[in-house]
């Protein structure tokens, strides 16, 4: 299976503080890949490096066959058309309505007739489970869950190959989080997305993530499917999966 994201020997440091020391992992086409780790383990930093917001000190990151260290500005633009990013807080543009937020990429980068753009936008709004009345609202008027959904619709509007999610279910209630997880799986199955998500929601790891990496102590402690990771003996993994919440989760099964 094709590898869409490959990170090898990445070292990241801010001044003296080393965040990643020789981190390597790879994401295959069509899978939902999780980045797991405690607070401060550098998972969000790694995500930022993947989406060209930060540069690692050394090591290489390849996304969709583009090497981010040597990528040219025009290639970067092409690459940015092929991914969608969902930020933790949604990062909707506060001066635009939900509809304008979602359509902005279509209007900027394609020459589709406005009528079709509107139809696509309304379909996406519906698809992520927002009521159509939400289209004319401003981000400030939305609840937390609605912001996440609107931001997902915005990330999906160009039918990206690769979807980056930064803690997609944080701040959602359990029912909302489960629905969001289901939505992501459904979209992956039908649109053929590859999803990279930063999460510490243990339920998401159990139910929707195909493979994941556990970051800790500046390194990748374990990488693979749930069963493979569970076989690794490491205090961090013990904490995550053999702690109280992890045990409850594994007893209740999939």
């Amino acid at each position: 299976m094709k590898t869409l994201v490959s990170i090898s020997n990445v070292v990241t440091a801010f001044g003296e503080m080393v965040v990643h020391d020789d981190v390597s992992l790879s994401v295959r086409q069509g899978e939902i890949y999780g980045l797991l780790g405690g607070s401060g383990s550098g998972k969000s930093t790694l995500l930022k490096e993947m989406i060209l917001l930060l540069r690692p000190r050394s090591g290489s990151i390849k996304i969709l066959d583009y090497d981010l260290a040597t990528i040219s500005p025009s290639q970067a633009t092409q690459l940015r058309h092929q991914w969608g990013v969902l930020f933790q807080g949604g990062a909707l543009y506060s001066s635009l309505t939900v509809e304008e937020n979602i359509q902005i990429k279509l209007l900027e980068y394609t020459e589709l007739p406005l009528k079709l753009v509107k139809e696509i936008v309304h379909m996406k709004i519906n698809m992520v489970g927002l009521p159509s009345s939400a289209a004319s609202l401003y981000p400030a008027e939305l609840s937390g869950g609605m912001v996440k959904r609107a931001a997902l619709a915005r990330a999906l509007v160009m039918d990206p190959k690769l979807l980056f999610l930064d803690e997609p279910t944080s701040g959602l209630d359990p029912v909302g989080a489960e629905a969001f997880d289901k939505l992501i799986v459904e979209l992956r199955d039908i649109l053929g997305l590859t999803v990279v998500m930063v999460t510490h929601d243990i339920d998401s790891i159990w139910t929707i993530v195909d493979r994941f990496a556990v970051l800790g102590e500046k390194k990748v402690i374990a990488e693979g499917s749930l069963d493979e990771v569970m076989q690794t003996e490491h205090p961090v993994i013990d904490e995550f999966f053999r702690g109280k919440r992890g045990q409850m989760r594994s007893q209740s099964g999939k």
Partner: protein
Amino acid sequence: MTQATQRNIAKIDQRHIDGAVFLTSSGLWNVHSLNQVSKQLEQLVKTIKNTAIEWNISQVEQVDSAGMMLFIHYYDLLKSNNCSIQMTGTKLEHKKLYRLLRKHVAHCSISKDQPSSSALQVIESVGKTVVSSTIDVRDFLTFVGENFIHLIYSLRHPGSIRLSAITKNIEEAGLRALPIIALTSFLIGVVIAYQGAVQLEKFGANIFIVDMIGVSITRELAPLITAIVVAGRTGSSYTAQIGVMKLTEEIAAMRTMGFEPHRFLVLPRIIALMIALPLLIFFADIIGIAAGMFISHIHLDLSYTEFITRLQSVLPVKHVWIGLCKGPVFAWLIATVGCWRGFQVSISTESIGRYTTTSVVNSIFLVIAVDALFSVVLTELGI
């Protein structure tokens, strides 16, 4: 990869055989390559009515949701034109995507309840503006009322007055404003002296420059210019500070802890500015007159001693007092408008900019309006 080359752009061909229409789609049907085909289809739905259509899509290489939406849109239009459509060459992936999107196609037509004619729109917008300004005035009066209640509370419980906040605000609004006030009032003094000197020289009435500078600076110009500078400098910062605190929910947090924002944020600012502005005006008086004296010396050969002796005899102290008394009034207006607009900031970052601008515009306007009122009333009273 997604950029469509000329070769595999989305295409549709039509052939008419025995009254039936055969459509054949090919190419990439994705967001980047649909422009041409959407125009063709638009033409197509206008001409084809009540016919049988066979639509072959086996040559379509790749479809994304934009492509599928385009298909769904025109498929529905053709159906509503009474055409029977038979699809051939559909693949499993097409069907899956079709089913997903079909489920979510919004059936709502976006309702527009705006009046149609432009005349009505003008009336509507005038009406909206009038209503919103009335609400503004009412809100402002409410704010002033609340503020007075807290002021009375503070006067009855002097221990609750935040002295440290007041001194900090005096430093910020008064002390740090000295350089810019010095510069502006110096320049105003220079301008007045120059313009006056040219006119007075014609009559040989050089000595009257002292009367002119003394009265105009102390009574009118120093208070007005200082207030305008302070409105731009301090009024805007009050709005922005309180606005950001509102955005970050600091104000809400204060309320939950029982720290009344009026007592902790608004009153110290208003009191501080009411103390600082008269002092700044006095400072501006001195600098402005000194600048005038300096120019008179250079331009009209009026010695400093002559100027000061003349000034003592022609400038009654009431003019200085009138100028200084405007200070607290202007300060109250600037600080109250600044704080009030800050509390109006709603949950978007954009509104901080909007309300800061409005706050400065409002307070400068109010300062000038009240100054005009002062002029008329005091002149009528013969003061």
